[in-house]
């Protein structure tokens, strides 16, 4: 609870601050801004929310300057970058775990392959199932159903937003800050603050700049 509260509290602070910084300093580089949000905000839900806010803010500022971008590109950049981080964290953690248990801290107990399945986050199966069903609806059914799919996804998006708000609300309700403070929350928060604002967001900005500077979303016709 302590660590999840810490991550969520910082994610909320980041969602409130970083999109406005992106609008002020990166509005001429919309995809750098999108990638930066994906790299800097820790939790997936907050990163996507931050990407959405950044897209709205930057598109509004660009529109005021007479540039009208196609919607969706900044948010898609944030989401793609975030998902790639998740995938690579998983792969890297697995490799390090394998090296540690098989070459460094070799105990009499050998981890079995079944351990992978036991630790596998099963909700991923839900993602795969929804993706497979959506793909089948889009390409394996009648053109009428495929045409209705974007509207159906839009309807489902309402639930995404509701559950996202409920997640933050639940953690807020369950977080007893007085108790957290007594348990060393302040010290952990200080370490997190220094590493986040002193290191993570700058490295994220550098990497985003290296890969996305000069790449602009297509203009709306």
């Amino acid at each position, binding site marked *: *609870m302590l660590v999840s509260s810490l991550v969520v509290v910082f994610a909320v602070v980041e969602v409130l601050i970083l999109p406005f910084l992106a609008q002020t300093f990166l509005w001429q580089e919309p995809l750098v801004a999108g990638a930066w949000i994906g790299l800097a905000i820790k939790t997936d839900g907050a990163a996507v929310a931050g990407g959405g806010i950044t897209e709205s803010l930057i598109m509004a500022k660009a529109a005021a300057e007479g540039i009208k971008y196609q919607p969706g590109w900044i948010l898609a950049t944030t989401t793609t970058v975030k998902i790639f981080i998740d995938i690579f964290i998983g792969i890297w953690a697995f490799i*390090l775990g394998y*090296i540690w248990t098989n070459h460094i801290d070799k105990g009499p107990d050998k981890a079995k392959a079944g351990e992978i399945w036991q630790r596998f986050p099963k909700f991923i199966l839900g993602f795969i199932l929804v993706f497979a069903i959506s793909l089948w609806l889009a390409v394996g059914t009648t053109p009428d159903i495929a045409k209705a799919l974007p509207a159906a996804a839009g309807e489902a998006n309402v639930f995404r937003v509701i559950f996202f708000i409920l997640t933050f609300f639940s953690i807020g309700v369950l977080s007893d800050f007085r108790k957290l403070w007594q*348990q*060393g929350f302040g*010290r*952990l928060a200080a370490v997190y603050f220094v590493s986040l604002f002193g290191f993570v967001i700058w490295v994220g900005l550098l990497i985003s700049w*290296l*890969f996305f500077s000069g790449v602009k979303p297509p203009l709306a016709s």
Partner: protein
Amino acid sequence: MSETDLREELKAPVEPLLPIEKKLIGWSLGLGIAFLIVLIAINHFVPIKL
């Protein structure tokens, strides 16, 4: 890890990193930077077109 464990761990003196841990951190950082350079090179020679 329970919250009591975490509280105790926060109060405990800092443990120095083991040589093998330093080696793993070094390799992780080195590989990360090496792959970053490779990706930057690919990005430079095969730029994205939207």
